[in-house]
């Protein structure tokens, strides 16, 4: 595998990355307005005009086309791949393949979601005769926390992971948010606060769960050659991987081990020719505190079962040895519903050195990892301002 995938390393770069003008609770804006603001900002960041875009990527049924229509773009390459919150990381991989093949040249990947206000949202409901409605919903599945709790409980059972270790993730992430003026949750937080917050679905407390917000983001991807003419320093894609193992949580192959994440890490590191020890800064999707713990194991940052110990002692906080979710994450920065886009935006900013008080000094190699569905899908991206 390694020789083949290595060919893709450094072929494309992210040249623009931005968010919508504002985020939080925005009942005065539709989901598509958030797409549009982010697209406008990302193209300005890249120094590219709308008419230079020839490929549009957006997650959901008809979304590639519908976003293009709203923006007045007539793309010749359209991708609406929807694998949950990691879709946009997967879109970068798809754009890499399409650009390297010469099918398109400038890819605009957009996300906009009125996750809290539910204004102008595209349809996502499952039919009454879908598998989910037949075999999960009748038992009172109460949204994502229930599904993630099933994995957290099994991880605790097999490996002795504790609620305190889960809480460490929320606390470290809040400390990063305190360095980010744009983060929505910036009050001090302790492990005790997390454990004292009300149970949503045991073993997950309220403060083990991400925010629910209205937000948008976009990135622009083009060939390495063209990237050198863009406004800012290119962020080269060194490695990428995506995988899917199931959709319904009841079909998860192993509740204590995240197989989809393992598959993506193996491929992305092989493509990039680097190891987990080489990563300077990591953006690891944190919909719930258990998620990064299982991701860090699956990606090889620690051994199986040791994720809880790995995040202990505030290792992932500012000043810790493993800077993770430096924007404040889905737990404290923002979480529209499909957070993966924001891992990309923050990684680009860290690699460009644009992060002010939360800047990780000398960060040259970043990892983004995304989650889709109920540990159903995953996507990993390794990026750098240099091609080693």
């Amino acid at each position, binding site marked *: 595998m390694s020789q083949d995938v290595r060919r893709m390393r450094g072929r494309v770069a992210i040249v623009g990355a931005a968010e919508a003008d504002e985020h939080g609770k925005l009942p005065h804006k539709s989901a598509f307005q958030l797409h549009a603001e982010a697209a406008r900002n990302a193209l300005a960041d890249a120094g590219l005009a709308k008419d230079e875009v020839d490929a549009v990527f957006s997650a959901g049924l008809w979304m590639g086309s519908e976003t293009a229509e709203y923006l007045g773009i007539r793309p010749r390459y359209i991708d609406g791949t929807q694998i949950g919150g990691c879709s946009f990381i997967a879109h970068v991989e798809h754009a890499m393949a399409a650009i390297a093949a010469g099918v398109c040249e400038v890819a605009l990947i957009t996300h906009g979601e009125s996750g809290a206000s539910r204004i102008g949202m595209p349809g996502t409901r499952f039919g009454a005769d879908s598998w989910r409605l037949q075999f999960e919903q009748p038992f*009172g599945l*109460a949204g994502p926390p229930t599904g993630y709790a099933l994995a957290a409980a099994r991880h605790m059972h097999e490996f002795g992971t504790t609620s305190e270790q889960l809480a460490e993730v929320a606390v470290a992430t809040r400390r990063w948010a305190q360095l980010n003026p744009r983060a929505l949750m910036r009050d001090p937080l302790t492990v005790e606060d997390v454990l004292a917050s009300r149970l*949503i679905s045991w073993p997950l407390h309220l403060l083990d769960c991400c925010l629910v917000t209205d937000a948008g983001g976009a990135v622009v991807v083009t060939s390495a050659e063209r990237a050198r003419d863009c406004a800012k320093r290119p962020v080269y894609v060194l490695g990428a991987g995506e995988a899917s193992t199931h959709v319904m949580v009841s079909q998860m192959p192993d509740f204590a081990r995240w197989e989809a994440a393992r598959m993506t890490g193996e491929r992305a590191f092989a493509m990039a020719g680097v190891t987990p020890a080489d990563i300077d800064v990591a953006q690891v999707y944190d919909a719930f505190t258990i998620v990064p713990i299982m991701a860090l194991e699956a990606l090889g940052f620690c051994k199986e079962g040791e994720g809880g110990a790995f995040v202990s002692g505030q290792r992932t906080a500012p000043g810790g040895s493993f800077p993770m979710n430096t924007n404040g994450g889905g737990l404290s920065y923002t979480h529209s519903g499909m957070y993966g886009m924001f891992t990309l935006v923050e990684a680009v900013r860290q690699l460009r050195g644009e992060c002010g008080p939360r800047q990780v000094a000398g960060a040259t190699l970043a990892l983004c990892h995304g989650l889709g569905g109920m540990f159903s899908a995953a996507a990993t991206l390794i990026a750098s301002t240099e091609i080693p």
Partner: protein
Amino acid sequence: MSEYSGPLPVPTPETRPFWEAARRHELWLQHCRACGAYVFYPRAACPRCLGAELEWRRVSGRGRLHTFTVVHRGARNFPLPAPYVIAIVELDEGPRMMTNLVGIVPDPAKITIGMAVEVVFEDVSPEIALPRFRPA
């Protein structure tokens, strides 16, 4: 029974035998003639070997608790009062299914992963009986 407020499954051609058996308070699974795998949820292709010959077999209704959560913030219109237990049961025949664990205090300290459980059906509409599990 007409008062049941929770979501009710609407069977498809592949799943209808499962729900018809449940109405008789029997647990039936598909079994692949080609590779011998038991299959759940029901479908028209064996997920192990893609075989098309899936026959229905009545199974024991016994299994072990694989993992669980105690739901405190319950689903809207779901009739079990919170806290209630959503469980993944691994059936003795192999497949896992989502269900509710009933007949037990919804307290994580009283529930043990690996404990033996058995199916119990609850009639929730004239057409549908839901397979729940209780300690065996």
